[in-house]
């Protein structure tokens, strides 16, 4: 609607612009400049960046202007020869710049500028600093360039008695992440690359939270804004992007239903947690957080590690440029306060694209570079990938790299073998929501230089080269970049019709007047066990960043209680089909008159689902430690009438005394749930992997 309006407006303006003589400002002196411009942490390349009246200007049709707008998801409409350029901001607000007018209009409000847009030849030159301010960016200059920082504009809370909504308005759609500090009972919503003027602490009225604190850390050119919400014990909370506006909402409520999850099915990165849980394994990603290197098993020889390459990729082949965060990017001279130097690799495109969030790290290898140094090679299932790096000054020298939109296939790895300049490299799944982030933390033995880029002649391999480098006090300490490859792997086709890539359907078998199997000797009833396992599974999946839809979450019949078995089983399928779940898992407990039968079996029907069944079977057996009865194809209703990959897990035999004994233990039910969750992760690649 808004965009349509902008087009109409522009068309009208084009007519009025025809009569305009463009020579009136032809005398403005524009001095070409090599100043650097950074927007949202990225360097933006301009063709005709100039200085006029001491401020940066660029033509409306300059690729740099287009990139600048792309990075904050704004769009410009302008026709050569017309008097007006109209920019539609991410929140829908129109910004109008008018030739000869030293005021621009922001949503109808006039805002003064130092000078007016002007024509020089056929080019309409726009003053960039007022444009950045109108885009609600923080504008921070330094001697050799200009930094435009997206902002957390406002943090506002309101409570309706049932729920408390904390709305965090941003100047551009934010790639935020959340963490929960169980000791302080604090939810942190973290906006890397965002600054803010909304600093401070405010009390939170209502019964769900205590306070809201807004802080900004990190270098001014690439700051991180954190909104910390003190949560009352036992309150459930979720964070998600609001629809229709660049805004992130944190919702707190005593009851999960009051979170209005159903209304938020469109939300990206939805995760629900309860403040009793302790789901955050690592501290938030402030530059001072030390990677927890000792937490993971030493796994330098673990399975995902491929044999080390024997040949160096000639560190930075010209066809495969490598970003050099610490060395190649000179610090802005004369401005010690600005430490950002975001240096992206050249991916052959004038406008960096957001990282597609569907990529997995499928293998890791580490090798010594013959010329001196260490190279870590990550094999990706696709690309390109965006990354963000930070380093600490000497003598600490630690360096870490967050690769966004990427999941780590396999366990966390700590590489500790004797490598030049490196004590330890820790590779972990740092975050899963709102987007997966793989963190590579390097603990060096001395100051290092790190080169990041594609490995030559190898599609989808990302090389991280660690070389010795004397410390430079003015070298940048953070930046971002992109690695792209010519060949990009395509994910295997999935023939089902799931539409929600981050939604899992869980079906706890039986329920209500259908108890399923039972073993009175151990007090086991199938319908109770399936629910207990399913609720654990739900929590595990939510911790991994999934949304979950349950066919039942208590002891009742699914569908019409008076309906027949057809309605009952079809109703379970309907729940998953209607929700467009990505996969369907029916949880059962087996039984047999043959009491010797024991172990886990995963059933499927469609041949295409065998891979899913095998993934679940493997990880459940690994987790539960009981007999592996394998995957079986069987004519079970719920795996036939669901529209997505579907399996039915018969977790254990309650008719077998050994299995039954295990089923009485909550820890065993935990293992079953974790096993199923891991199998889902293995098969799908995670909640952000493509359908």
């Amino acid at each position: 609607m808004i965009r349509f309006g902008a087009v109409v407006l522009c068309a009208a303006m084009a007519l009025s612009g025809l009569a305009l003589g463009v020579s009136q400002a032809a005398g403005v002196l524009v001095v070409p400049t090599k100043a650097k411009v950074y927007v949202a942490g990225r360097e933006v390349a301009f063709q005709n960046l100039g200085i006029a009246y001491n401020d940066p200007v660029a033509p409306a049709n300059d690729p740099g202007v287009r990139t600048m707008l792309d990075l904050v998801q704004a769009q410009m409409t302008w026709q050569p020869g017309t008097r007006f350029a109209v920019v539609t901001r991410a929140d829908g607000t129109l910004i109008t710049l008018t030739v000869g007018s030293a005021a621009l209009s922001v949503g109808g409000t006039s805002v003064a500028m130092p000078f007016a847009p002007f024509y020089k030849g056929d080019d309409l030159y726009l003053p960039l600093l007022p444009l950045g301010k109108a885009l609600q960016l923080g504008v921070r200059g330094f001697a050799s360039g200009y930094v435009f920082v997206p902002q957390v504009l406002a943090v506002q809370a309101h409570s309706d008695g049932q729920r408390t909504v904390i709305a965090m308005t941003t100047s551009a759609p934010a790639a935020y992440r959340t963490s929960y500090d169980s000791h302080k009972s604090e939810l942190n919503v973290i906006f890397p690359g965002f600054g803010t003027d909304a600093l401070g602490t405010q009390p939170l009225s209502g019964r769900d939270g205590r306070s809201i604190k807004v802080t900004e850390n990190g270098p001014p050119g690439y700051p991180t804004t954190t909104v910390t919400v003190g949560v009352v014990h036992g309150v459930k909370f979720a964070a998600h992007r609001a629809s229709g506006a660049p805004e992130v909402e944190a919702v707190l409520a005593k009851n999960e239903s009051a979170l209005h999850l159903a209304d938020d099915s469109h939300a990206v990165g939805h995760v629900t947690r309860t403040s009793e849980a302790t789901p955050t394994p690592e501290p938030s990603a402030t530059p001072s957080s030390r990677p927890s290197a000792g937490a993971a098993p030493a796994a330098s020889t673990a399975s995902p590690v491929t044999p080390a390459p024997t040949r160096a990729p000639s560190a930075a082949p010209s066809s495969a440029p490598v970003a050099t965060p610490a060395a190649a990017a000179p610090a802005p001279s004369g401005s010690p306060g600005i430490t950002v130097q975001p240096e992206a690799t050249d991916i052959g495109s004038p406008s960096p694209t957001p990282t597609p969030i569907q990529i997995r790290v499928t293998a890791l290898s580490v090798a010594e570079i013959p010329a001196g140094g260490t190279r870590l090679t990550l094999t990706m299932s696709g690309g390109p990938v965006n990354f963000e790096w930070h380093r600490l000054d000497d003598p600490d020298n630690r360096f870490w790299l967050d690769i966004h939109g990427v999941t780590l296939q396999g366990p966390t790895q700590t590489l500790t073998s004797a490598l030049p300049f490196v004590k330890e490299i820790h590779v972990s799944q740092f975050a899963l929501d709102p987007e997966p982030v793989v963190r590579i933390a390097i603990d060096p033995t001395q100051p290092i230089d790190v080169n990041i880029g594609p490995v030559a002649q190898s599609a989808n391999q990302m090389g991280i080269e660690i070389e010795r480098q004397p410390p430079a006090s003015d070298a940048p300490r953070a930046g971002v970049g992109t690695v792209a490859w010519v060949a990009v792997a395509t994910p295997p086709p999935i023939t089902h019709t799931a539409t929600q890539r981050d939604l899992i359907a869980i079906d706890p078998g039986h329920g209500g007047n259908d108890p399923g199997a039972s073993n009175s000797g151990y007090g086991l009833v199938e319908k109770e066990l399936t629910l207990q396992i399913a609720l654990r599974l739900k929590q595990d999946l939510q911790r991994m960043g999934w949304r979950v839809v349950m066919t039942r979450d208590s002891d009742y019949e699914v569908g019409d209680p008076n309906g027949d078995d057809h309605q009952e089983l079809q109703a379970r399928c309907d729940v998953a089909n209607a929700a467009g779940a990505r996969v369907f898992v029916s949880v059962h407990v087996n039984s047999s008159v043959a009491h010797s039968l024991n172990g886990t079996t995963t059933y499927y029907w469609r041949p295409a689902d065998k891979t899913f069944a095998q993934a679940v079977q493997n990880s459940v057996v690994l987790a539960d430690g009981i007999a592996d009865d394998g995957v079986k194809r069987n004519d079970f209703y719920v795996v036939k009438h669901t529209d997505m990959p579907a399996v039915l897990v018969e977790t254990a035999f309650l008719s077998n005394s050994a299995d039954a004994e295990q089923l009485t233990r909550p820890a065993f039910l935990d293992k079953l749930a974790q096993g199923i969750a891991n199998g889902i992760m293995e098969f799908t690649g995670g909640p952000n992997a493509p359908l």
Partner: protein
Amino acid sequence: MAAMLACAAGCAKKPAQVVQAPGHFTVDFVDAGTEALAPVEYTVDPNLRGPGLADYAVTQLLAGPSTGRDAVVLFPAGTTLDVSLQGDMATVDLGGPLTKSYTGGAEDESAMFKSLTYTLTNVEGIARVQVLLAGKKRAALPGGHMELDEPLTRESFAQ
């Protein structure tokens, strides 16, 4: 070569139907320890075939093995199975407690219908088995897992 390719494409996995020698009939019970099929061969009147042979087969299936084999009858006491044949399909009207509720495991349920399906498809010309519950086509046993509103074949079962 062509035959080999065809086999690679799936014929090896297709459950084989036992060719019954005249005067012999195999009833597929379920082994008590493994729930695998436990075939027991019966000597029958060579003139017994078609519906009569099918009726004989389900009667033996409910009665249990007459030999000393360690096989079990998974159909609960009181179960009735009325069989009729049409074309390549046997229709079995199941009566008794199973029509009210099923409280066994998926493993037993699968083995139970597998033994019924395998036994009836031992009758020459029969490839499919449609199960009715008390005369009506139903999606599944109450509390059951297997889909019953479509005919079962040997391929319906865990392989």
